């Protein structure tokens, strides 16, 4: 490092190097390798063989890829609608004080304490048509045989619901914190103007939560694009391919079919989507903004 006075006592690159090297070894190097593998035919057994753009050409012709991408986008959109529609009003509602709300909040937040695997296992038991709740409650909502996860129409909805069940408390928490930070003067002014509760909600609360809506939305998008174990445990992508989202398609292609070259191409698609989304996070919301949104928790 230069000995210039302005740099005296300042740490150099060497302070960042260990973290960077560690991150590079287990995250950056594999990223490079996965790109390389996507241009090869590789089954794990025989050495990778360079096949040029074959795997990439296959993407276009693989109906399962189109379906899985479509399912992933669908899952993202449905998750965003469901989770925002519930978490935003709920967070706002829970932002106010009161014993009932505090007790309800405590219950609402319990899923936060469970791992994805635990949630998927719990819902797997709940949705079992013969031995779970689905067989009992199904007939009440018009599903006579309780067949939810084995039905191509309902299985996707079930996945959206279970993922929503898992992440809803988290987003509610974000909205609750953000709602508490809205200056009370705004509401005073609205009251003077004679605005009703709905008007206040639409014209003050929602605009004030704009940043949180973006943050929460981006997180839902990233989370939904990469969600994996809930679907693996709950449906394994089935019935048929009705819930075979992109990350699962990649996993099954690589580790069940041992088509690791093609799986790598699928992984690169995930990688590109993931990186694009992380750029989006950094650009649109800014990490500093996100840090400040944790205030008031």
């Amino acid at each position, binding site marked *: 490092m230069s000995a210039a006075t302005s740099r005296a006592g300042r740490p150099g690159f060497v302070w960042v190097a260990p973290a960077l090297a560690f991150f590079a070894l287990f995250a950056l190097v594999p990223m490079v390798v996965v790109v390389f593998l996507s241009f090869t035919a590789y089954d794990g057994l025989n050495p990778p063989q360079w096949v040029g753009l074959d795997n990439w050409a296959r993407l276009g012709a693989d109906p399962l890829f189109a379906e899985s991408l479509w399912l992933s986008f669908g899952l993202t959109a449905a998750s965003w609608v469901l989770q925002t529609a519930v978490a935003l009003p709920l967070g706002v509602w829970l932002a*106010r004080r009161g014993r009932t709300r505090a007790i309800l909040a405590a219950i609402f937040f319990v899923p936060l304490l469970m791992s994805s695997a635990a949630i998927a296992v719990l819902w797997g038991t709940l949705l079992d048509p013969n031995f779970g709740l689905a067989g009992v409650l199904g007939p009440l909502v018009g599903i006579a045989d309780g067949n939810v996860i084995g039905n191509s129409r309902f299985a996707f909805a079930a996945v959206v619901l279970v993922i929503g069940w898992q992440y809803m408390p988290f987003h509610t928490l974000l909205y609750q914190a953000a709602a508490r930070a809205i200056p009370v003067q705004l509401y005073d002014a609205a009251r003077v103007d004679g605005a009703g509760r709905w008007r206040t909600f639409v014209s003050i609360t929602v605009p004030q939560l704009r940043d949180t809506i973006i943050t929460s939305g981006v997180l839902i998008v990233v989370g939904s694009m990469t969600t994996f174990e809930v679907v693996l445990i709950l449906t394994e992508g089935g019935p048929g391919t009705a819930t075979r989202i992109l990350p699962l398609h990649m996993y099954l292609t690589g580790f069940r079919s041992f088509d690791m070259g093609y799986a790598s191409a699928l992984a690169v698609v995930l990688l590109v989507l993931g990186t694009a989304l992380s750029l989006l*996070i950094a650009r649109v919301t800014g990490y500093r903004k996100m840090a400040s949104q944790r205030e008031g928790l």
Partner: protein
Amino acid sequence: MITVSTTADRERAVVGGPPPGAGDPRPRRRRRRGFNVLGALGAGGWFVLVAVPLYFLFVTSLRASSAYLAEGPLALPAELTVDNYLRVLGSDFPRYFLNNVLVAAACVAIVLVLALPAAYGIVRSRSRWVARGFSVMLLGLAVPAQAVIVPLYLMVTQLRLYDTLLAVILPTAAFALPLAVVVLTSSLRDIPNELFEAATLDGAGPARTLVSLVLPLARPGLATIGIFTALQAWNGFLFPLVLTQDASVRVLTLGLWDYQGQYGTNVPLITAAVVLSLLPLLVVYLLGRRYLLAGLTAGAGR
């Protein structure tokens, strides 16, 4: 970075309408009632959706398997038993639990040791390379683990780490690192420049500054990223799934999945295992709610 919300904050923050109890002179009751009904219905509906599975989870875990099958899942249990818990605890569960603790502890240690100097370097260094390194970290924020699992699997087998806890620990820590650095960096930026300058005037080099100035002030930030990392490791699934297989190195998440296959239709036993798996976080939640929530929402950067 984490501001403790004071009572004053709480009173200031009233949302969605006037504070409770504040009278509204104008009679706009019809509209208002409509909104309330909607709100209550929505909250009530979601409440049912959250509460029923949780009720099912806790109550079923206390029922005998035979009673569950005979009476059905929703019946009010005639008698409760802790047998399911004893059986789960008598199985491999404690080992899975211990493995999870080891993985989480090691990941936290690695992340704290690497992230603190990195964040300090990023905040204080004038080097262009540091800035570039930081950009790389930022880029890694949302890289999904699935995207690199195939090469990671190959690397781990080549390094002969397959089926060891280290195989889970290293990538888990590496993937928790970018966000840890980012969160810690923004936390260190809040340290006033004057303090650093004073330390330099005292003749402190970077190492002493880190220990005597940065470390004490970074504690809340370290707690946040520690909890965030521990949560990541505790709930991790893909890395253990692909990089280990033996029961001696199995972690809890995979263990739960295993129970589902092993005990199958013995629903009470499975629910007992699920309840046991969430107890540690419940304890953390009760003891340090604020830190846990901060750690959780540090995930807001992922």
